[in-house]
């Protein structure tokens, strides 16, 4: 497994805030083995400053001191450091392209393995499960849904989403080529929509870090959307390396609508399969 490259020296002097941020991430890595050291700085800085305000702490250094001694506080900070923002059938064109251009090829395999990397609170996992069931593939597909945030994984397992989101999800589902009525898949109760547990009965939800862990299965499709944008290029390359290693011959990689592999070391190792929808295929 590749080691993550040491960050190169920066052209201009670091501000105190940036130095404190780096020290905090180093401390978190040494203490809790969560590796945020190669996340993009601009967004990480915003989230840590937001956490400071919410936790009522005066400085990043003060946060570091407390986090080192208080695992409970680290658990809370983790919720700020990760970005649990997702929706079902987000970017419907992506799911439509999967149906039209990927599913027919997945049908040629006796069994299928799909890796949803950075699954957050599970919206994408349930979306894919619905799509695969409608396409007659779910019963012979093993989905691995991984994330570094245990709270998100627990929410994902439950498959309960706020009822006020359902209207938007329904519109997405229809634009994604949904074959049924979206309401067939959930029961509404109080403020929540509980999705059919049989959709994800066979999904393996697991703690996995693209920054520190290795490949665990051979897959035909990796879906990793709006995760790589939070990584610097070194860490993007590490993650893309894992996906490349995990994917079978001519396996598929789906990224977020505004992500691309053009600025990574892997641009030559994947072919664009459905370029506007950011679906790539492992090059021969």
């Amino acid at each position: 497994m590749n080691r993550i490259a040491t960050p190169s020296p920066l052209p201009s002097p670091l501000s105190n805030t940036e130095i404190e941020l780096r020290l905090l991430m180093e401390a978190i890595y040494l203490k809790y083995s969560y590796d945020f050291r190669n996340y993009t700085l601009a967004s990480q800085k915003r989230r840590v400053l937001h956490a400071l305000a919410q936790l009522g702490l005066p400085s990043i250094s003060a946060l570091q001191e407390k986090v080192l001694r208080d695992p409970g506080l680290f658990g809370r900070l983790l919720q700020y450091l990760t970005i649990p923002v997702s929706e079902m059938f987000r970017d419907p064109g992506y799911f439509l392209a999967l149906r039209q251009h990927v599913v027919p090829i997945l049908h040629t395999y006796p069994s299928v393995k799909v890796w949803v990397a950075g699954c957050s609170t599970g919206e994408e996992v349930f979306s894919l499960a619905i799509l695969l069931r409608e396409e007659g593939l779910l019963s012979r597909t093993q989905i691995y849904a991984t994330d570094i945030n245990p709270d998100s994984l627990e929410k994902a397992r439950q498959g309960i989403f706020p009822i006020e989101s359902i209207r938007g999800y329904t519109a997405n589902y229809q634009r994604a080529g949904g074959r049924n009525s979206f309401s067939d898949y959930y029961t509404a109760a109080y403020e929540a929509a509980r999705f059919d547990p049989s959709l994800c009965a066979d999904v393996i939800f697991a703690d996995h870090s693209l920054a520190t862990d290795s490949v665990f299965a051979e897959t035909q499709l990796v879906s990793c959307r709006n995760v790589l944008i939070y990584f610097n290029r070194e860490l993007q390359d590490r993650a893309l390396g894992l996906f490349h290693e995990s994917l079978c011959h001519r396996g598929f990689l789906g990224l977020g609508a505004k992500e691309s592999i053009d600025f990574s070391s892997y641009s030559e190792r994947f072919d664009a399969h459905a370029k506007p929808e950011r679906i790539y295929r492992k090059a021969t």
Partner: protein
Amino acid sequence: MNPDATPYAARRIEAAVLGASAGGIDALLRMLHDLPLPWHLPLVVVLHLPEGHESHLAEIFAERLQVPVHEAADKMPLAPGHVYFAPPGYHLSIERNRRFSLSCEPPVRFSRPSIDVLMASAADAYGPALAGILLTGANDDGAEGLQRIHLAGGITAVQDPNEAQISIMPEAAIALHSPDHVLPLRELRALLLQLESAHVH
């Protein structure tokens, strides 16, 4: 006018970031049409549009400007003389290595992309070598971002609220700090040409 501002002939500005919402397309076209070629200063724009709509801003401006126009992509490096627009539904930041990064963090002041987010990250990346320009708009996004550019030693300019189609955005910026320049579009354009000439020399 900021009395501490160094004369621009002696200031090398390496990039300019621009923000606008309502009325912004017209204002930007008036500012950026017929930029003298070859143009060198990279320009990065956040223009608010209703989220969920596919943006054609880059295409619209590419058809009307002589300089190359792109939708900013994650980890794309800023190239000299190019104009970039933030993609809809994502925050756009500039990292210290002068590449873009995108993020799906929640909207800031109901806006994603947020002008504040772009300007604050650019202020961190460029320090005093940055110019921020805020135009017409119907909310107060950009006021804090422009202040961050000012505090990092950069140059700040806002459209004269009397001329702006909607004056809320420039007025919010003027209320928060004293921008180096408050000018009508024609003179903002002249300022941009001056920054370009200082950038080249």
